[in-house]
């Protein structure tokens, strides 16, 4: 057999770049650039340039069962029987809500759709995934303000913006193709770049204005920017008049947030705040995008409302060259949300408490009723497991031991459960706690659709064979459902049939059929209501999707983070990511070219802070918070504020972080807590 090239979508972030996998006899041998792909025109960030994890000898190849003497290999038949048997037992003994399902932003739409369907047909809404830890506040906040949680336009619109605001995000490291191909392009065409955040990161290197804020003070700064825009009469009066509700309430709320007040709360310069306000208001074609620096706070949802409202003041909605929303972190986190892998939403964002919508889906699935109470969100699943109420969990391709805030409690929860199943491609930190481990095929070893941050749905084809007995998640779920006696509802021969069902269930996906998708390189952007519809790049063109059809201003007040520094823990701890490592490092940590360059965590602190605590560059120290300790190497960095320490979380630093939740979105405040440095010698 000769070498072949298969088009796939990158398995990492939510940009959704296309590339070819080069294979020889069904095995991965390299990649080739897809120069015609509309998102990335060939270019790729470092991560997919080395996908050798696919061939790692450590891939899971057989189902494993935990015994007294460690994990032993078992057959698929036995594994599925055991999983179904135990789940039945537990559901019968303790009720449907004693089990929970973790879906995966790394799996295809079809797989997430099936997993949430399985949970719901077993009678529980306890199905959630890591979107809860990242953009749930965006989903809820943008949903309340505009009617849709997703990004309002496409990356091309970012490139055509005249002002770009990046808030609480570092796309140069976490979204390199959007930074390189779109933001830098806009900049080279004369656009101005404003970056807001605690660290002068590699994105901020390219900014025209950088506003440095203490973690957790974003609302004060956003309100001050609006204060200036309103007081100076710089807002888009026509847009406010015609398309926005609640302007007067806003005027009232932001009137006290002078730039000086915001400066005293945030540590930012009042002058920079004013300058930024003027610069933003200089154009009616602008972008505001954000990431975890906005969402991972107890006020995450309110942060989102504040930023969405700035854009409304300036009329940055519904036209080319404007774009507002969250930059989504995983290649299918948009899709897994769309599919209803969330505790409060059925597919297509139908609220589980919405009787009419729920009935409609129940009918399509051929059942009379579906569970009507909001399920447990991800952090709550582990809390309830720890207190003994959640007895069993099914984890598909997630690694909460590394990704969840205050991860010691996650481990306690996992260990307290009577039965834990983990389905993954490697023995992850989470899988180590499982009773049964099911070996899954990686994305390139199966086919299905992914939805990127732009709402672009793309088909990713099968390029290589899975190792050993590893199987695509889709077929594992189908087998399990059959064993659970639900075969009537899981009668699918493959992903195509599942997508055809999704076409019926989710109106925004109605026209995105498998045949069409496979023949449309670059995919189709939802909403796509029919097969002859070309997709929708820009949302809210005529009206917003709120009940009133108008943008709904909900003014918000500054509220300090749940945990602030004190005498015992004098520093603020925040977290960040690095370009060559992806999330919990399951895949990138097994690709040599990446490991070589990004081998370990480096916590960054200002040289002045280092001086105060007597630590030096490269020194290994112990970071301690009320929740745990973590050994890490220190790197001095002029660009971070004094009194703040930032640690990358890929290698396990979430032992330290705070799991206080945003009451509106249930997202933990991973981005700020109190911390101290303890020297080792």
């Amino acid at each position: 057999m000769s070498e072949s090239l298969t088009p796939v979508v990158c398995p990492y972030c939510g940009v959704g770049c296309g590339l070819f996998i080069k294979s020889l006899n069904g095995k991965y041998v390299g990649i080739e650039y897809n120069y015609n792909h509309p998102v990335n025109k060939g270019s790729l960030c470092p991560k997919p340039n080395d996908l050798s994890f696919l061939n790692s000898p450590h891939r899971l190849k057989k189902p494993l069962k935990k015994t007294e003497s460690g994990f032993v290999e078992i057959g698929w038949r036995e594994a599925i029987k055991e999983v179904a048997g135990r789940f039945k037992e537990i559901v019968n003994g303790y009720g449907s809500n004693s089990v929970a399902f973790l879906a995966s932003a790394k799996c295809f739409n079809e797989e997430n759709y099936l997993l949430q369907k399985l949970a719901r047909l077993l009678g529980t809404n306890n199905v959630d995934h890591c979107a809860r830890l990242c953009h749930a506040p965006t989903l809820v906040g943008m949903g309340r303000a505009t009617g849709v949680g997703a990004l309002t336009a496409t990356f091309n619109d970012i490139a055509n913006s005249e002002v770009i605001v990046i808030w609480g995000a570092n796309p140069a490291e976490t979204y390199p193709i959007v930074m390189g191909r779109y933001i830098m392009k806009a900049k080279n065409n004369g656009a101005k770049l404003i970056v807001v955040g605690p660290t002068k990161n590699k994105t901020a290197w390219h900014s025209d204005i950088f506003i440095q804020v203490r973690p957790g003070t974003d609302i004060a700064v956003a309100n001050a920017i609006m204060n200036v825009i309103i007081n100076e009469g710089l807002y888009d009066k026509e847009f406010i008049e015609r398309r926005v509700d609640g302007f007067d309430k806003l005027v009232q709320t932001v009137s006290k947030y002078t730039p000086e007040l915001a400066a005293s709360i945030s540590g930012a310069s009042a002058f920079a705040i004013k300058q930024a306000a003027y610069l933003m208001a200089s154009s009616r074609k602008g972008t505001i995008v954000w990431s975890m620096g906005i969402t991972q706070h107890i006020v995450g949802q309110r942060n989102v409302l504040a930023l969405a409202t700035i854009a409304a003041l300036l009329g940055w909605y519904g036209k080319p060259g404007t774009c507002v929303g969250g930059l989504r972190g995983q290649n299918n986190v948009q899709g897994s949300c769309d599919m209803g892998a969330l505790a409060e939403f059925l597919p297509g964002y139908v609220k589980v408490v919405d009787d009419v919508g729920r009935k409609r889906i129940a009918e399509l699935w051929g059942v009379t009723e579906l569970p009507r109470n909001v399920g447990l969100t991800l952090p709550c699943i582990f809390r309830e497991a720890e207190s003994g109420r959640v007895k069993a969990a099914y984890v598909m391709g997630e690694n909460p031991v590394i990704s969840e805030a205050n991860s010691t409690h996650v481990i306690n929860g996992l260990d307290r459960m009577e039965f834990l199943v983990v389905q993954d491609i490697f023995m992850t930190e989470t899988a180590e706690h499982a009773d049964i481990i099911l070996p899954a095929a990686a994305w390139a070893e199966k086919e299905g659709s992914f939805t990127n941050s732009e709402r672009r749905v793309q088909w990713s084809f099968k390029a290589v064979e899975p190792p050993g007995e590893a199987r695509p998640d889709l077929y594992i779920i189908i087998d399990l459902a059959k064993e659970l006696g639900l075969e009537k509802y899981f009668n699918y021969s493959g992903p195509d049939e599942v997508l055809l069902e999704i076409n019926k269930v989710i109106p925004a996906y109605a026209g995105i059929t498998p045949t069409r998708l496979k023949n449309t390189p670059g995919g189709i952007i939802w909403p796509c209501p029919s097969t002859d519809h070309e997709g929708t790049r820009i949302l809210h063109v005529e009206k917003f999707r709120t009940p009133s059809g108008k943008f709904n201003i909900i003014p918000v007040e500054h509220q300090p983070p749940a945990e602030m520094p004190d005498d015992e823990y004098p520093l603020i701890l925040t977290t960040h990511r690095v370009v060559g490592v992806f999330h919990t490092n399951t895949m990138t940590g097994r690709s040599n070219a990446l490991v070589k360059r990004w081998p370990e965590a480096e916590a960054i602190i200002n040289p002045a802070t280092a001086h105060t605590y007597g630590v030096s560059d490269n020194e290994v120290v112990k970071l301690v918070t009320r929740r745990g300790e973590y050994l890490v190497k220190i790197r001095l960095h002029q660009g971070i504020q004094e009194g703040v320490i930032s640690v990358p979380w890929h290698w396990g630093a979430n032992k330290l972080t705070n799991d206080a939740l945003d009451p509106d979105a249930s997202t933990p405040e991973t981005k700020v807590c109190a911390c101290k440095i303890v020297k080792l010698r």
Partner: protein
Amino acid sequence: MVKILYVDPKNCISCKACEIACEREHDNVNHIDVYIVEDAEVSVPYTCRHCENAPCVTVCPTKALYRTDSGVFVNYLRCIGCRQCIVACPFGIPKFLDMFKVVVKCDLCRHRLAKNLPPACASTCPSGAIVFTEEVEVTKAKRGVEVSKIIGAVKTAKTLT
């Protein structure tokens, strides 16, 4: 017209994709290095300039180093490992590969050019910091941006008079 590897550090977002792409295409040795200088807030992708009048070619006693219309290349079979090129190169580019006792450097991904594919670093670079293009294209693009700025200024001036 011949295409050149045009490197503009101003656009570089410090991602090192070019290093990894190069390494993949060249048996685990990368011929481009990205120097990330935190204090200066600049990153410099650094690779062979493919000089027209290349000092390395001039000093190479065996003609292992040679120049064609497209760039400067090494014929590994001729290289005697005398390292004269390392002495001569003003940019510190040629590397001595201990395993094979020869000198290696950027070869513009010759194997890719033969298939009509651009070099790996330019293909992967997200930011346009590395492009493989004709020199006139670069100057044309730069002029385009400046001309449109001037047009903007002239327009403004006209509205003022």
